[in-house]
């Protein structure tokens, strides 16, 4: 297994899929000559030519709609939307067309397209360029939404998304592009709709995804020194959501905290909390808690941006509060004293 960056894993996967299936094509702004704003598509225009790697004007609704049409006719377009913020311009094509054609055609027409788009804050890109809009898409039946946290999952989920017959949004994260990790060589897919227990533990479950998974692992490592065993569940897919894995973990640990970069209200954390209430209520020893971003447009100023985004310190504090809420601290202290 090679150690590569998240960025490299995405690039290698796109290239491999272009080689594997001639119906795969890439389409988006500046993905050809400029090799992509984040260089994910570096070198692909030279290798595959303009029929397979299409540069477009600034026209998100237009090229997203073109991809829907191409997919309906049997191609497998992979759309790059430069950042998730711009996907709002294409939301009618995504929500009203890509998501619904299979159902509205009575299953006669599939839309095997991928929309890959990076998002997230922390890059000092200010309020309109730092958003996490996953809830907008995860809410919609007919769409699949994945948010890989590691280079290996970036490869596995991207490959699965391209081969899927339904429209899939692959939400990349700007903060992850340079992170490194082992990636399986050769053929590697991750089934869409499966979460992963990325770190086993026994005292509390932290449910996270995308950048949050790394934050959760960091918190887990730091808490281990205090004798707290944190289990980290990486959702990987936001729709379909692997409710079983989440509930099974919480049933083991009896406590849960959800971490997300998105705003708190109506968010993924709310969905997870409800899932746990439905699936693991009788095993809960403390209320489910959520850690999320401050509910403000993300500030540009770096200290303010850092203050608005949730971090490992915030997560650790809430984990402690959750443990305290069910007497964990008292028990630890007692056993130490005894």
């Amino acid at each position, binding site marked *: 297994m090679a150690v590569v960056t998240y960025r490299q894993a995405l690039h290698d996967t796109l290239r491999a899929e272009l080689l594997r299936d001639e119906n795969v094509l890439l389409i988006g702004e500046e993905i050809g000559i400029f090799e992509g704003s984040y260089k994910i598509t570096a070198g692909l225009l030279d290798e595959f030519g303009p029929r397979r790697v299409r540069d477009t004007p600034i026209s998100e609704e237009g090229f997203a709609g073109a991809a829907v049409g191409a997919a309906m006719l049997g191609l497998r377009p992979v759309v790059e939307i430069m950042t998730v913020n711009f996907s709002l311009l294409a939301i009618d094509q995504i929500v009203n067309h890509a998501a619904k054609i299979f159902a509205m055609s009575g299953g006669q027409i599939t839309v095997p397209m991928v929309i890959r788009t990076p998002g997230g804050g922390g890059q000092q890109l200010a309020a309109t360029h730092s958003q996490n809009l996953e809830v907008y898409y995860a809410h919609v039946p007919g769409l699949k939404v994945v948010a890989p946290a590691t280079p290996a999952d970036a490869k596995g989920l991207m490959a699965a998304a391209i081969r899927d017959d339904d429209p899939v949004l692959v939400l990349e994260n700007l903060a992850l592009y340079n992170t490194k990790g082992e990636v399986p060589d050769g053929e590697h897919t991750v089934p869409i709709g499966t979460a992963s227990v990325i770190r086993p533990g026994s005292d509390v479950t932290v449910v996270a995804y995308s950048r949050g998974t790394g934050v959760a692992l960091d918190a887990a490592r730091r808490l281990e020194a205090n004798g707290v065993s944190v289990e980290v569940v990486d959702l990987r897919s936001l729709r379909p959501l692997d409710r079983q894995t989440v509930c099974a973990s919480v049933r083991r640990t*009896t406590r849960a905290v959800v971490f997300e970069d998105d705003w708190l209200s109506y968010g993924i954390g709310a969905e997870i909390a409800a899932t746990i209430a439905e699936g693991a209520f*009788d*095993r809960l*020893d*403390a209320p489910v808690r959520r850690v999320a971003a401050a509910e403000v447009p993300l500030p540009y100023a770096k200290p303010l941006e850092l203050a608005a985004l949730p971090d490992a310190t915030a997560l650790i504090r809430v984990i402690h509060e959750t443990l305290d*809420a069910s*007497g964990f601290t*008292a028990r630890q202290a007692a056993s130490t004293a005894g």
Partner: protein
Amino acid sequence: MPEIFMPRLSDTMEEGTLSRWLKQEGDLVHKGDAVAEIETDKAVMELEAYDEGPLIHILVAEGTTVPIGTPIAMIGTDSPATAQKPPLEQAAQAPDPSAAPPTPPQDPPAVPATTVATVSDAGEDSEVRTSPLARTLARQNGIDLADLTGSGPGGRIVRADVDAAVPTFSERAAGRSPLVDDDEEVPLSTSRRITAQRLTQSTRQTPHFYLTTIVDAEPLLAFRAQINDRLTEPGLRISINDLLIKGCATTLRTHPQVNASWDTSRILRHRRIHIGIAVATDDGLIVPVLHDADRKTLTAIAREAHGLAQDARARHVSPASISGGTFTISNLGTYGIDHFTAVINPPQAAILAVGAAQPQPIVRNGELGVGTTMALTLSIDHRVLDGAVAAAFLADLKTLLEQPFSIVL
């Protein structure tokens, strides 16, 4: 085939014991017939039928305790011979709290409105706070959550609290009693348990403060003797307690702030005055309520209070007779107690503890002499009342009791 369910007869009731069947299998039951006697946490009550027909199956044996909503009998239209009889619920065995009810608790059958409505005890937050896991584990281990003290936020019972109780439980289950030979474990009656639970809750959640005043009891005793001399009704006597009930009710009328309750997060001031009288019974405290005590004559109070106390000791109280109190009097004077403080009967705002009227050295006009005095101690919920308001009430009560003729004005 209509079923009869274990009814919910009070807010605090979670399970009931079938103490006696009044109808037998095969008996014809009419609507409104009493079919069984149910022992709840507070009393023994008759269960009426809501359907008509032969009682074809008794599902719960006498002496068995089952959760509310559990079917206890079936009334049918077909003959007893043809219907297949379901097994008798764990007949005569000790109740097994870990056993799930045969059906999930359903809405209890409609109980006559008069019974239900009066049971409601506004603001009585009798819920034991637990985590769902603690509740599950307690049920699995047959532990009563009411016996546990919660270590979580706000006294919430969490897994650690149940775990701590489990060894004790398993030791008992294994027959290895942790008790030494000198001790004897007293089986906890439902009533005792609820008393313990509610009073623990009261001391834990209610910020109490106490005011004591010493009343010159001589005029009161003289007044009582005078009245009793003139009473012609056989067996009727006015007690000091009756005078206190009337005195408190009268004083509450001019101090409506005291006739109040704490209802979760607000104060409820009651327009009617219902005085509870704490009565000790063999297995717990019962507080029958004398409704509208301020509008009743002294003799009516005497008659009613006497009857209520007798019923309470016999545990034959109706939900109506123990509900809705707005103020409570606890009198240990007959036991010779000089002075004590009582625990507030939630959600009420105050309780009056009455000591014995007995000879004491007193100072009158600067001279030491012998008089008869009685200590009154008011326990007050500081969330509802402040010191000055409560003190004014107590001062007026003292004045009234020292000029007892005004009680009957």
